[in-house]
């Protein structure tokens, strides 16, 4: 984790994310059918496939550029709640990275913090509302505390699992009231996959 991260790393991250959400699409959709509208897997698959294809066609020069570009593609291809939210996460993280050719993991952690804050602001959710934030937050925090990508992935996965007993207060799951309890949030689950993809990209 001492290595600096270049644009190639960030492209690998996005490719690994595309592979992960493709692999797990059915599980994400199953989770979304329990407390949502059964499209989260298809949404993530469509969005990250578009990101991976676009980056293949137009490889971006810097880490920041890769994420800003990826974020824009998500916004343009996903729709739903997750499109603008994940799109904003990547765009704002990318913007925070500036135009450096290489960034440190610490800089990424900080930039991701800005990205997550932007997601919270856009969606109006806070920790404990049973959303993607409940995996994004712990993941980024672990990274910021020097836990490395593996530690961040672990924390994000635990965060996702911790959404099971929560009562949803944002997104579609909130319509269910008490009936949202007992199910893991699909967006938190896909967020944890993004951290897993970071580990893969670094491997």
């Amino acid at each position, binding site marked *: 984790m001492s290595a600096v991260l270049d644009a190639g790393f960030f492209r690998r991250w996005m490719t690994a994310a595309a592979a992960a959400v493709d692999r797990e699409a059915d599980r994400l*959709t199953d989770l979304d*059918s*329990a*407390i*949502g*509208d*059964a*499209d989260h*897997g*298809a*949404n993530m698959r*469509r969005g990250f496939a578009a990101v991976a294809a676009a980056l293949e066609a137009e490889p971006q020069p810097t880490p920041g550029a890769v994420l800003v570009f990826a974020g824009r593609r998500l*916004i*343009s*291809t*996903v*729709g*739903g*709640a*997750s*499109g*603008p*939210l994940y799109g904003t996460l990547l765009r704002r993280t990318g913007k925070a990275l500036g135009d450096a050719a290489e960034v440190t993991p610490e800089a990424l952690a900080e930039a991701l913090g800005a990205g997550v804050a932007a997601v919270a602001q*856009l*969606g109006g959710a806070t920790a404990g509302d049973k959303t993607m934030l409940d995996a994004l937050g712990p993941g980024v925090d672990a990274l910021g505390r020097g836990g490395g990508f593996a530690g961040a992935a672990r924390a994000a996965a635990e965060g996702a699992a911790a959404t099971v007993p929560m*009562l949803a*207060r*944002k*997104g*579609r799951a*909130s*319509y*269910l*009231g008490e*009936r949202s309890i007992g199910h893991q949030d699909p967006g938190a689950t896909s967020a944890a996959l993004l951290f897993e993809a970071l580990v893969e990209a670094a491997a």
Partner: protein
Amino acid sequence: MLINVPETVVADALRGFAAAHPELTVDVENRVVVRRDAPVAGKVALVSGGGSGHEPLHAGFVGPGMLSAACPGEVFTSPVPDQMVRAAAAVDSGAGVLFVVKNYTGDVLNFDMAAELAEDEGIQVAKVLVDDDVAVSDSLYTAGRRGTGATLFVEKIAGAAAEEGAPLERVEAIARRVNAASRSFGVALSACSTPARGGPTFDLPPGELELGVGIHGEPGRERRPMMTAREIADVAVDAVLDDLDPSGPVLLLVNGMGGTPLLELYGFGAEVHRVLGERGVPVARTLVGNYVTSLDMAGASVTVCRADEELLRLWDAPVRTPALRWGR
């Protein structure tokens, strides 16, 4: 399912829609359906959109007297801002565009982004949020009430105001008024099957029903043993009236979720009329049919809109769309 592959369902439907409706301009590639004569000089334009799977909403409501353009998203997934910006640019005559947005996190976020982008391009944009579903409490603990059947009332009535030449602020105000005067309640007798999932979105055994469902195949607020049409009408109408308390005449939409036969829907409509009569609510206009659907879900929703003379006049005004058509 009568499809090719889940990935092309929306594009396939748009191709079919284009073939069936030469009177509209359908951009299959960019997923925008536009009134052929748009932009209409001096006229405020109405743009709506949302996830697919609710047909005829919204594309079926494009045409003179209603929407200027519609943006269909993937199944149950809000469209993306690019579609809305493209639609706005295609229909804006300079008089401005009203976005009609059903209150779902995804729709709100995507339309908000689109509004910003469209304004950057010099288009004046106003927005109305439709949130009529009383099954969801409008509190800090939810994303707010869902937008369901009232969308039809808002699009029809605001569309008529725009057709009459009302300016943007006025079209927006009327749209807000219709939404504020409307409430809905829905029930599901079966789940629906999305193409991506290939099967029911939740498990609802025959002999049970879900009260307080939306239009996205999500479970409702409460599961109950099967009830009669009479009992369901009592529950639905009372839930609506509890929150609305109309004094005068109302518009009534008895809406099928897609999988309930029209025969049953009319029978349910009779019971809805009965309860409204018992509660002393005069029904000025009734619409019965599958208008705001949830794929093949069996079930129905009731939408009531408090109507004054102006709303009734605008409701009765001519409309010429694939799914709603009268007058002229």
